[in-house]
């Protein structure tokens, strides 16, 4: 046995032992949590102040579910050792996606991509269509792709559209996706391609790490908890996420998604429009009592019903719509024939010679039945029915869309669909590319807002709990991430409750004395320790602060995403700026809500302290709430450093 293997084995045993202890601690923590929340619901709600008592117990329940989902995630935290040797002779395309990043930055990433050791073809996917970048790509000898003419006037779908366009213009079996600023290591493919020896693996994701972030990480850019225990946990349950960059994908899997998506969307589209047409025909029948069109309308309705039932029994869409079109043409010819024979009778009565007009000629009937002059056009519904035969997805630039376009976070939506179709994913926890984080609060806030909006979009459009094809752990892994983005509402309650207690003596619980204390404190300690154990001494405090401090961002994300999904309102989609923006003014207005909350917290501390010293405030309750307010303030304080942060200077670090 070689030394390397020995070390690997020892660390594996160590890891297995650590996981056992972690699980024991999870069980203890959840037991204490249940003990606390059960008592909260059963015996502690102060109904006389229900307007804050109920929101508070709901907020706490929300947090407890969040903790449970986190516990489930890390239960199977899976640390993979170095990957298997790369599959031989694979063809690989490296995609560098860009929209408005500086040309030099993109070319720097591209030249690093050229130096990747495993044989590959590098491409710059320029959605900005910039001549300077085209020239730069030619100089480096890398491919350059932009959207073609056929994208004119069609939805562009941002980064997802950019990738989809490139997928149809390239041919490598595997695709490494890199954001414009993500500079890859030469061994990135050697470390990741090996996993694809398993035919069902569609995705290998590696961490996203940023090298322009000081150790203090004022903007909370690094996500050690997510790119550590959380992704490892999702991986353990077979649901490692795709995070948009630094990931290798199997083309076959993406095409499988694109094609199955095309079939589903066409079926859905045709069915929806047939149903719409049917209800319009029924409406026309109700409104129109005239004898002539009634029979034609009934026959049209029957034809549509037949088409719907054929679709239901699994007949091919093209067959069904073709038959429906023929049937409608027949009906149309019938009406024309009736009209013309009535017309002949009238002419007879008028004494005209029939022979001169050849009204019963098949040619005249056929011509008068064609779709442009068909009597069935009288009912708009029928025209729609004819259009429902659209199987070419004419509203999109591409009929086949491999990357999901239902969300601005196309990565999460795509991975979920891959998993639902039975593909597997891998999280390989080794930094193999270094990127640039936003260098200022405005850009950081835009980025977080976009992630949150995209996540909520996926939740509302394709709720993971309802996705057939996903197993239950996978459903929960997706749901866990979405659930965590709803925290803004709970935070508002956590900020308001102690302020109300300290300043106005509004008591959301029956008592802050003994019973509360002995249930809450052990749970809280166990909870904090769980985070420490789970994170393996990685710095996760920044992340916790931001989860609380960005509550207005999370709330905005929820309502804008809901308005987008339900009412079609635009998200005001913004691309995260990667350039340094040296604005002199401190953007205090961006954190107005937090400043307001901070001021209220400070006032409540002063008032609470005065009551404690001079009044007859309940000491335990006051002290608990003062501690609570202090925790809120320390969390919010992260924004003071953030709002003043003016970008990364490497020299400061040394």
């Amino acid at each position, binding site marked *: 046995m070689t030394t390397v293997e020995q070390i690997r084995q020892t660390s594996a045993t160590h890891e297995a032992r650590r996981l056992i202890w972690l699980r024991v601690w999870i069980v203890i923590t959840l037991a204490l949590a249940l003990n606390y929340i059960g008592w909260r619901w059963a015996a502690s709600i102060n109904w006389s102040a229900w307007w804050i008592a109920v929101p508070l117990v709901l907020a706490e329940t929300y947090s407890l579910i969040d903790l449970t989902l986190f516990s489930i995630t890390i239960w199977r935290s899976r640390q993979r050792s170095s990957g298997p040797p790369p599959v031989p002779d694979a063809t690989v395309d490296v995609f560098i996606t860009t929209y408005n990043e500086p040309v030099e930055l993109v070319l720097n990433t591209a030249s690093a991509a050229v130096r990747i050791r495993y044989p590959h073809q590098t491409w710059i996917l320029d959605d900005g269509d910039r001549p300077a970048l085209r020239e730069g790509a030619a100089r480096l000898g890398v491919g350059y792709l932009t959207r073609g003419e056929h994208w004119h006037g069609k939805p562009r779908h941002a980064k997802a559209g950019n990738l989809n366009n490139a997928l149809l213009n390239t041919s490598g079996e595997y695709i490494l996706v890199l954001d414009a600023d993500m500079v890859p290591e030469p061994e990135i493919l050697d470390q990741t391609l090996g996993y694809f020896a398993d035919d069902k693996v569609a995705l290998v994701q590696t961490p996203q790490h940023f090298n322009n972030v000081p150790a203090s990480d004022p903007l909370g850019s690094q996500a050690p908890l997510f790119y550590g225990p959380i992704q490892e946990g999702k991986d353990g349950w077979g649901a490692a996420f795709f995070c948009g960059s630094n990931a290798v994908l199997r083309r076959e899997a993406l095409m499988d998604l694109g094609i199955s998506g095309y079939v589903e969307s066409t079926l859905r589209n045709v069915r929806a429009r047939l149903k719409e047409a049917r209800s319009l025909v029924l409406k026309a029948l109700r409104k129109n009592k005239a004898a002539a069109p009634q029979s034609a309308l009934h026959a049209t309705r029957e034809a549509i019903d037949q088409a719907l039932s054929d679709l239901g029994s699994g007949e091919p869409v093209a067959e069904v719509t073709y038959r429906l079109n023929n049937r409608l043409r027949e009906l149309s010819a019938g009406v024309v024939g009736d009209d013309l024979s009535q017309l002949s009778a009238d002419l007879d009565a008028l004494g*005209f010679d029939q022979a001169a007009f050849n009204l019963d000629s098949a040619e005249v009937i056929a011509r*008068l039945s064609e779709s442009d002059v068909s009597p069935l056009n009288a009912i708009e519904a029928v025209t729609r029915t004819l259009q429902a035969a659209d199987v070419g997805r004419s509203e999109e630039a591409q009929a086949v869309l491999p990357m999901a376009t239902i969300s601005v976070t196309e990565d999460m939506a795509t991975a979920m669909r891959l998993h639902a179709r039975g593909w597997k994913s891998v999280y390989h926890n080794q930094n193999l590319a270094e990127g640039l984080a936003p260098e200022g609060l405005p850009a950081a806030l835009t980025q977080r807002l976009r992630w949150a909006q995209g996540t909520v979009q996926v939740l509302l459009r394709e709720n993971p709990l309802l996705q057939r094809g996903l197993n239950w752990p996978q459903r929960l892994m997706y749901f866990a991430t979405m659930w965590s983005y709803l925290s803004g509402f709970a935070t508002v309650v956590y900020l308001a409750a102690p302020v109300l207690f300290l300043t106005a003596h509004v008591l959301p619980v029956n008592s802050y004395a003994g019973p509360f204390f002995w249930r809450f404190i052990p749970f809280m300690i166990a909870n904090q320790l769980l985070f420490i154990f789970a994170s393996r001494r990685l710095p996760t405090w920044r992340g916790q602060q931001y989860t609380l401090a960005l509550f207005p961002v999370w709330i905005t994300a929820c309502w804008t995403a809901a308005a987008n999904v339900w009412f079609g309102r635009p998200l005001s989609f913004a691309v995260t700026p990667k350039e340094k923006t040296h604005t002199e003014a401190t953007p205090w207005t961006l954190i107005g809500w937090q400043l307001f909350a901070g001021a209220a917290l400070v006032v409540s501390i002063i008032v609470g302290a005065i009551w404690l010293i001079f009044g007859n405030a309940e000491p335990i309750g006051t002290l608990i709430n003062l501690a609570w307010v202090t925790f809120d303030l320390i969390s919010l304080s992260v924004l003071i450093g953030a709002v003043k942060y003016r970008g990364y200077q490497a020299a400061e670090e040394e």
Partner: protein
Amino acid sequence: MTGFPIEPVGSDLSVIRVEGRLNMVTAPHLRDTVAAAVKAGQSRLVLDLRETSFMDSSGLGALIGSLKATREAGGDLRIAGAGEQVLMVLQLSNMDRILKPYPNPETAFAD
């Protein structure tokens, strides 16, 4: 509302403005309007087709039906101002040889 607007121009002459589509749904409206006019003693009618955007075989049937109704009452029916699509349907069925398309309502009963 069923029926098309009708306007008397003189003692026994009226103009019916056929607006929009003259099709399976609206053709009965034209028949009703003409029948009512004939009943009221107005049997010389001009169909003003300048604002008719579309006509199908049912519309064509209504034109001939209206012609029949006016003739039986001793009057006549003329059509005026037909657009491209309406003319196409008339020509296709040779009906332009029965109903002469006049350029405008003023000239329709000039004789």
